[in-house]
């Protein structure tokens, strides 16, 4: 009886927390629980982006339950399958790779690969087409089902990752496939498109420039991240926090730096929730009292034809120029077309209600679950949080700067405050512009004018994401 109780106690999460089996120290678990508690507080008590912070915080809690193993982040990294440590191959596919390299060596082709202390690179540049075909067929024989070679580097095929997740993964691993395959961000963008009215942008296309100016923080944060020693791929993922767009940040990060996904998603959504606190001081700093009092003339009416043609044209143009932005902009515009066409009401309602709600739960939980103690409690996380804040501030100032220039050029017809709404975060950034404008003059109505740069910011941040993906993917 006593043995049974002792055995049971030995299998509990608390015992696992203090055991040598766990690769996380007990105090690291406790720190994570404090962070989870803080996120719950922000979501439930302060009501900061609760729809997203709540699932993210719960995902973090699930990922940090000792021994529960609901999430295996390592399944999604190439290093889990093949890596090199001290000149030796490790990982689940190391035996296959060792056999392949052995065959190459026994055939006198050992010059085709370089095995160093920490890397394995294939040198295939000088091979003729015939030799390359022979090499590829041999590689396919040993590893073709699981891996492929691109630019001399081995990458694990998605089909093999899915097989590993299905065979050995937990519940959250399965949900995370939607992030890894880029499904969730695009579907969320479809819902956002269905909920967004682009009429203010169509009526005042000049506001596109303010959305573009607000991407300054994205690229500036990229530069500062490089200076802090992040890789260009990580810096791109960090910079996109400045776009103030959660799905975009997640899509870029899962492609360029999946190991930073938890920290970047939490930073992005937290700062989006804190926009009413972050933006106003800089809006007041960069504008004069007289500028804030400027009243803008009413926008022209927008016809139904314009609203229908707009998403088709935008999807076509943006995807033709920056094709890596297609998953985001394409689905954003599809959602909008479902709404404005007037003939697909059922689809539109599904996109903006049930579908986006389901996806939000899956996305939040699986992204939060990437923030386990081993992955999250690093100096890098603090840098990411600081750089994210910097990106937000510079993006706000970039939009305001373009707003000020346009105010001067138009002879004072544009209130520069609406430039601050160029960071995406629809519609909160536009509401902040409205609030600050009304503080200067209570009879000032800027909301509809600020919605123009606001929705332009959504398109701009997707384009900025496409720029990073086309450079670094």
């Amino acid at each position, binding site marked *: 009886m006593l043995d049974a109780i002792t055995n049971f106690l030995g299998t509990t999460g608390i015992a696992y927390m203090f055991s040598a089996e766990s690769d996380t120290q007990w105090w690291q678990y406790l720190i994570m629980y404090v962070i989870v508690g803080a996120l719950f507080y922000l979501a439930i008590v302060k009501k900061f982006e609760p729809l997203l912070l709540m699932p993210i915080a719960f995902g973090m809690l699930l990922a940090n339950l000792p021994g529960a193993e609901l999430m295996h982040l390592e399944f999604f990294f190439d290093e889990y399958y093949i890596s090199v440590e001290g000149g030796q191959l490790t990982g689940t596919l190391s035996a296959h790779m060792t056999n392949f390299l052995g065959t190459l060596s026994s055939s006198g082709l050992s010059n085709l690969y370089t095995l160093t202390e920490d890397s394995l690179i294939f040198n295939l540049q000088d091979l003729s087409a015939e030799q390359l075909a022979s090499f590829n067929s041999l590689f396919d024989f040993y590893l073709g089902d699981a891996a492929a070679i691109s630019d001399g580097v081995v990458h694990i095929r998605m089909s093999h990752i899915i097989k590993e997740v299905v065979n050995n993964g937990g519940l959250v691993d399965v949900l995370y496939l939607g992030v890894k395959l880029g499904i969730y961000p695009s579907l969320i963008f479809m819902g956002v498109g269905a909920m967004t009215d682009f009429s203010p*942008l169509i009526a005042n296309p000049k506001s596109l420039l303010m959305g573009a100016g607000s991407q300054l923080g994205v*690229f500036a944060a990229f*530069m500062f991240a490089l200076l802090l*020693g992040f*890789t*260009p791929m990580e810096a791109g993922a960090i910079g996109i926090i400045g776009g103030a767009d959660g799905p975009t940040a997640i899509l870029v990060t899962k492609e360029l730096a999946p190991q930073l996904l938890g920290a970047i998603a939490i930073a992005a959504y937290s700062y989006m929730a804190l926009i009413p606190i972050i933006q106003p001081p800089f809006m007041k700093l960069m504008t004069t009292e007289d500028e804030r009092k400027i009243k803008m003339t009413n926008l022209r009416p927008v*016809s139904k034809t*314009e609203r229908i043609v707009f998403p088709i044209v935008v999807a076509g143009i943006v995807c033709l120029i920056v094709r890596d932005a297609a998953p985001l902009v394409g689905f954003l515009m599809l959602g909008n077309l479902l709404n404005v066409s007037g003939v697909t009401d059922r689809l539109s309602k599904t996109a903006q209600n049930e579908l986006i709600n389901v996806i939000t739960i899956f996305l939040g939980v699986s992204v939060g679950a990437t923030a386990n103690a081993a992955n999250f409690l690093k100096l890098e996380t603090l840098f990411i949080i600081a750089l994210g804040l910097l990106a937000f501030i510079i993006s706000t100032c970039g939009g305001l700067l373009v707003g000020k220039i346009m105010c001067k050029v138009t002879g004072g017809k544009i209130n520069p405050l609406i430039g601050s709404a160029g960071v995406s975060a629809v519609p909160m950034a536009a509401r902040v512009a409205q609030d600050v404008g009304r503080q200067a003059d209570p009879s000032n109505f800027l909301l509809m004018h600020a919605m123009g740069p606001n929705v332009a910011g959504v398109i701009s941040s997707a384009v*900025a994401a496409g*720029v990073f993906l086309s450079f670094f993917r």
Partner: protein
Amino acid sequence: MFGIEDYSKPIVDFANFDIAQLGNALLFGASILLIGMVTVFSVLCILWLFLYLFKLLFHELPAKRAAKKKVAPIITSVDKTTEEAYTDDGEIVAVIAAAIAMAESEHSGMKFRVVSFRKV
């Protein structure tokens, strides 16, 4: 590009730091900043151009056509247009509400309250 091809490695290595690395990172970062901003502005300027065409095609051209029609003395068609324009209750409500809101804000002493809406 810019002499940096392996994007999976940091440009600034703090373990073996020298100032040239910092300069290299700064140059690379500034180049991407410039290219990125130019790309974003270019794409959005093209969109702006298309939206300007929208205005010409779908707003100003129909307005001119409507103005021409108004000149023609066909009373029945004018009546139909007028009738169509005033059948949208939501639009009438919005116009009245906006007018009241403006009046309230400009003359804080005046008070209006909408009691009912009637189709005319």
